[in-house]
């Protein structure tokens, strides 16, 4: 394990039992062709912590999130520089297969995107391709546990064979979370998971995120500062591709050190 206190801004939150450093990014630059989208970003993602990325649209927070599980690889013109490690291992090392990385660093997307298959098959897909289940009973067990963890089990247990696309928006998003959880990732990345949901579904997902924290480290990109304040322990504020401030959520929202952060959270920029 790496030392947890490389960055003087990232003090451990006193209120949360944070043990170790999970992911570490140092000097990350991302280019889309000639466009310098992320500039020299350093972030530490602690284990069993919710880290929120906030910032105005186009500030690079989603891009940086995708750096963490190499989803940017699928974009031809995208180029990533700098060091990103997962438990001390460089995820951009040529020896690393992004497929293996993504099994450890799962992702939930902005728009619910269940596969056009049954609810069961949606959740079972990850365990199946990674060979996590020895037999059918094992698989059913994983599916049930994942759906329970996503607080969806009671709603769908009688219709596991129904298509996942037939659920409501909030249920679909929780299904996507269950699907991501089913592969037992170590880090769960969430890219604005509530932006397509109504307040009730949002509350459910937020509750869920708080629960997931007991097992994974969660990184969430959000446009809603209230949401960041509610669910996260650490918050990073991005602006124009720069990481402006990264600190405990309480500190960011009550006593930000950078005037730009203050302007953003009080609604003067953004």
């Amino acid at each position, binding site marked *: 394990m790496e030392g947890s206190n490389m960055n003087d801004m990232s003090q451990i939150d006193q209120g949360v039992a944070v043990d170790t450093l999970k992911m570490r990014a140092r000097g990350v630059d991302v280019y889309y062709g000639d466009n310098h989208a992320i500039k020299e970003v350093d972030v530490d993602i602690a284990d069993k912590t919710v880290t929120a990325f906030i910032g105005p649209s186009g500030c690079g927070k989603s891009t940086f999130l995708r750096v963490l599980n190499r989803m940017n690889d699928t974009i031809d013109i995208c180029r990533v520089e700098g060091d990103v490690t997962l438990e001390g291992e460089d995820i951009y090392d040529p020896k690393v297969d992004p497929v293996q990385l993504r099994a450890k660093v799962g992702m939930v*997307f902005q728009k619910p995107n269940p596969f*056009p298959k049954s609810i069961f098959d949606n959740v079972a897909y990850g365990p199946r391709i990674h060979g996590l289940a020895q037999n059918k009973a094992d698989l059913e067990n994983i599916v049930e546990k994942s759906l329970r963890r996503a607080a969806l089990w009671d709603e769908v247990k009688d219709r596991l064979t129904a298509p996942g696309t037939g659920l409501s928006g909030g249920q679909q998003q929780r299904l996507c979370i269950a699907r991501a959880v089913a592969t037992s990732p170590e880090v769960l990345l969430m890219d604005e998971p509530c932006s397509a949901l109504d307040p009730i579904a949002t509350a459910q997902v937020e509750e869920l995120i708080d629960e997931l924290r007991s097992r994974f480290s969660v990184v969430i990109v959000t446009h809603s500062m209230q949401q960041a304040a509610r669910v996260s322990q650490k918050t990073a504020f991005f602006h124009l591709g720069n990481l402006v401030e990264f600190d405990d959520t309480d500190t960011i929202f009550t006593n930000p050190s950078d005037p730009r952060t203050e302007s953003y959270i009080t609604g003067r920029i953004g």
Partner: protein
Amino acid sequence: MTDMPISTAPKRSLYAQDARTKKRNRAETRFRVYGMAAVITGIIALIVLLTSILGNGLSAFQQTYISYPITLSEDRLDPEGNRDPAEMAAVTTFGYLPVIAMSLQQHLEAEGIDPGMGGRELAAMLSEEAPAQIRAMVLANPELVGTTIDAEILVGGRIDGFFKGRVTMESAERDRNVSPAQLVLAQQLAELGMMETRFNWDFITWPDASGSRPEAAGLGVAIIGSFYMMLVVLALALPIGVAASIYLEEFAPKNRLTDLIEVNISNLAAVPSIVFGILGLAVFINFMNFNQSSPLVGGLVLTLMTLPTIIIATRASLRAVPPSIRQAALGLGASKMQSIFHHVLPLAMPGILTGTIIGLAQALGETAPLLLIGMVAFVREYPDFLSTHSNTFPLMGDGATALPVQVYSWTQRSDPAFVERASGAIIVLLVFLLMMNLIAILLRRRFERRW
């Protein structure tokens, strides 16, 4: 009125249309009329086409037969009297003609009908195919020799045409091939029930016949040839096309080379089909020495022609799969291959199948390239997919012909009865095309999934 400044014309009633609105409404009405006119023109053209083809062609499925007892005399058909099929085969159809003509004459005499014409003229009412029919029957069962059988044989094309309304008394007077006396007799025989016009499958199953016996010409060889070619096209074009599309759409880097390939595939789809025929002639027949006019060569040429259609359709349907599905799979740690084969391809399947079947239908109706590779030949033999007649490439199949080519060659023959045959062949072709489109629709329904 309306060109007044707005400020000075404050009051405008909603009940009265102003000039601008009227103009816009008129434009819309005009556009609707244009659209309806276009649709109606199309429908009229379709109706005219179908009426003409069905009117000309439906009668091809009907055929006139004459039935009477035929005495198969032994001294003519088996002079040695030993029923040896090899020796009996030495008697050609010319040996059978007098047998059936004589029997007809005798039967008419026995029935008390005066034919009103000589034996030669009477025999000319029968089809030239009739002796061959009886000969095949006898060779299949030599025991028939010496007996009298109740056989049903084809009548000549002109007599057949008389019952279908194509030949009339007036036209018969100007026609060297048929006389009014023959038509009178034919009418008489039909009233007696000896001659009958009825539905026949032979048009579908029999091979082509020479220009002087349209009544015996069938589509059997052409249908088999077309079927073999479709098999070849399906077996080659579908996997190659889908594999190429998946590679180009999902894996290939976007650079000048792939751009060039993309442009060329689009251009290939627009290349005149006869060019593919020249290519097939040069490559498959002249260079690779495949059997001329074999279904395999035809299938290869049609495959080349169909590939761009399939590739374009497949790529379009791959592109129509929402990227969120790919991302969901990749985000779960699926490999690119897994995300494509587990999620993208099943969603693209309806489009791929539709494109493939449309490509196949296009290939089924294609004539020009087949003319160049020799498929326009007159073929009497049912082709085998694996040729037993060729010693160079036995796997390449016998020479065959294809449905559209059969239409083409029939329309070139002089006997007007072939107009009916060609139209009938077009009906068969259209039925096949309709069936393929139906399958495409059903498959699309079956595989269509919402997301």
